[in-house]
């Protein structure tokens, strides 16, 4: 059943149809939230709020828009809100990140530690660069989709993605010979 049909069913009173939408997008949204926020507690917080907001606002969803893009727009804004709140809060993440940053760089062994390594490398990127990189190369969106979703112009997004790639490449140059 299509997203649009499930949305119609929810609006007709079939609340269980929303569980199908959750099933369809939960893992993908979880991946973005974890990669973006760097820890599972905040990611879970973002997911809960995103799906609850989507459910409450379903009456305002316009069928001409893709449901996935609409949902992602809510998710991206939730991740931004949580990241901003976290920065103003106890700054636990910053302390954790500082520990990681002070740890000696070394080349990954391309096995079990890879996910932790990738998460750490992504966390080193500025949040706006990280967001653009993830939307482009992890969620595989077009720049036009990203622009609609973030409200940022295509050229600015291209610049962010390029800067993210440049930083990742520069980091690799630093550690590859160690």
């Amino acid at each position, binding site marked *: 059943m299509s997203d649009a049909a499930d949305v119609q069913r929810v609006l007709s009173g079939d609340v269980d149809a929303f569980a199908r939408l959750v099933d369809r997008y939960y893992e993908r949204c979880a991946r973005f939230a974890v990669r973006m926020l760097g820890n599972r507690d905040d*990611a879970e917080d973002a997911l809960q709020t995103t799906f609850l907001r989507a459910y*409450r606002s379903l009456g305002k969803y316009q069928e001409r828009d893709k449901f996935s893009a609409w949902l992602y727009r809510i998710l991206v*804004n939730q991740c931004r809100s949580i990241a901003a709140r976290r920065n103003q809060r106890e700054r636990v993440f910053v302390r954790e990140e500082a520990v990681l940053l002070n740890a000696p760089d070394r080349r990954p062994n391309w096995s079990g530690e*890879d996910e932790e390594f*990738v998460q750490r490398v992504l966390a080193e990127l500025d949040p706006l660069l990280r967001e653009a990189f993830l939307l482009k190369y992890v969620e595989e969106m077009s720049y036009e989709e990203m*622009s609609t979703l973030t409200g940022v112009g295509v050229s600015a997004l291209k610049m962010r993605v390029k800067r993210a790639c440049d930083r*990742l490449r520069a980091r*690799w140059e630093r550690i590859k010979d160690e």
Partner: protein
Amino acid sequence: MSDELNSLDPYVQWIASEARLSVAVDPAARTRLLDALRTEPVPHRRGRVLAWLLEPRPLALPPLAAAALAASAVGIGMLGGLAIHRDGRPSTAQPPSAGAAISQLPDSIAPRAIKFVLIAPQASHVSLVGDFNGWNASANPMKAQGAGMWTVFVPLQPGMHTYSFVIDGSHFVADPAAPIAPDDGYGHRSSVVLVGGSSL
């Protein structure tokens, strides 16, 4: 894998492909979400009558009817002005940021140029987004007027409009001198301006 991804540096490509792998999520979190959803009221599509009322549209009225509507809009505007004063948030409030939507009362019900103002001294660029420009941050960039003031004129059809300011491309702020719109579900706060009367 897309061509764009293939053209990346191998190391960046590896980071992207690793980041695309699924992440382990707590199954109990999904259960908690579904439990929370069951306590929510069933959502409904906005009623057709309300949607029709809220949708901005050009209207054609005989001159006498237009004059009567303009006169009643003046009355509403005065009430709106009083409400803003009671709220105690003057549009020239100082940093971190303050702003005001100034709607000009119409002589007719044709589209009117509405001036939006935001005080944001730390911003390097600011734009206006709203339901009238598809929430596109490129559509209505605001001009720096000095002393941290940013302004833009936008022609708006009569009706209620929801809007927000975007500072430096990513930071959404509601207009501190205007009423807050109901939650739009996008995770940021918006403001409301009524064209053809005053802010609600």
